[in-house]
């Protein structure tokens, strides 16, 4: 058993999110709406060595297959993450992160004077105007939220 596997054992069924930007595993959980109160078995490894990126985070969620629209949000904070769906210890599906043209419900608009930050019962909505580095234009106030702005929200 490798050192890595000693840290987090293989899971039988569920989802493994690997290559999360180091230090962001808990943010990924937040984006996915995982609080721990769902009763799911979740293993988190933070700042583990990675041959590709130096350091990385890993998240293993047992007995839960993430859907494509759920995983798409992860790209906002972990653009290099890979997602493997596991069944009977085997990888049965690899999902690629794909940034959609429009986003709803996440992140918050960077503009404190935006109507979506005022307590109105409305979700944020954005157009993706640039992928790399990420830039989102709020559909309501038209202001641009950048990758840095999103990181500051955690």
């Amino acid at each position, binding site marked *: 058993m490798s050192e890595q596997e000693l840290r987090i054992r293989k899971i039988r069924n569920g989802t493994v999110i690997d290559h999360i930007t180091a230090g962001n595993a808990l943010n990924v959980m937040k984006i996915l709406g995982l609080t721990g109160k769902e009763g799911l078995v979740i293993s988190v490894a933070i700042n583990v060595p990675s041959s590709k990126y130096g350091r990385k985070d890993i998240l293993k969620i047992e007995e839960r297959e993430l859907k494509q629209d759920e995983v798409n949000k992860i790209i906002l904070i972990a653009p290099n993450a890979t997602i493997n769906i596991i069944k009977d210890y085997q990888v049965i599906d690899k999902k690629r992160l794909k940034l959609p043209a429009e986003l709803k419900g996440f992140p918050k608009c960077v503009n404190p004077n935006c109507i979506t930050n005022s307590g*109105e019962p409305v979700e944020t909505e954005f157009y993706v105007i640039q992928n790399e580095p990420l830039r989102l234009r709020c559909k309501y106030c038209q202001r641009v939220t950048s990758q840095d702005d999103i990181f500051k929200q955690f």
Partner: protein
Amino acid sequence: MDFKNKSIISIRDMKREEIDYIIKSAEILHENWRNYTNYLSDKILGTLFFEPSTRTRISFETAMKRLGGMVVGFSAPEGSSLAKGENLIDTVRVVENYCDAIVLRHPLEGAARLAAKYVKIPVINAGTGAEEHPTQALLDLYTIFKEKGTIDGLNIALLGDLKYGRTIHSLTYALSNYKVKLTLVSPPLMKIREEIMEDLRNNKIEVKETSNLDDVISEIDVLYVTRIQRERFADPTEYERVKGSYRIELKTLKNAKKDLIIMHPLPRLEEISQEVDYTNHAVYFKQVKYGLIVRMAILLLIFGFEIK
């Protein structure tokens, strides 16, 4: 072109053809508005001003009444359902049952777009946050068109608080539809936001930035003046110093073109000396009349009338 039931939320949503159509309609209406005094006699306009306003509100109310329509609404949130904690979405859903269109001013950006999403009647943005004031931009364009006969080909200077002024933002976006040169004159602290500069660059608008009006006064065709806002300065001494250097007086205009026009969204405080009012350059009071005509045209168009 069909504007029936359309909301006017942001100048950024409008194509040049649509802006030109409103200007053209206003020009026709300007000459024969008296033929239209009964057109909106069965219509009620809801004016929801969540932020104090004098000129814009009176302008819309007069426009509606000149066309035979009626107006209901409020001009400050105190005493309204908002003061009781009602949200904007609920407020407009209620008002929708009383009115045929809503004019909305709100301190928060995006408020008009949110309102328009939840009601079936047209919503006209009368100023939201620091970002949008589309009818002001349309009346500004109409003023330039009426006074200069064209918008294309002009060198237009925007002076004052370019960072926070919503009229500036809307006008900048509106002008980026035309082949104009933009000259931006402001204290370094109040330069236009980089985001807007980027949009101007994308639209291939020639932009010159300076903090000194004297450097450019002889080159420009239109001088659009806005107030330097005292509340933006942490140090009152700095405000006094800056304010003085952006005051338009007769001597400021010594090297100006003879047919330079000076515009201002009003209220004017000390940024334009009253002696300038009596020169041929000053069009800021005419601008108010042009605004009324443009708003009358917009109301007729969204209620489905063609102006010919």
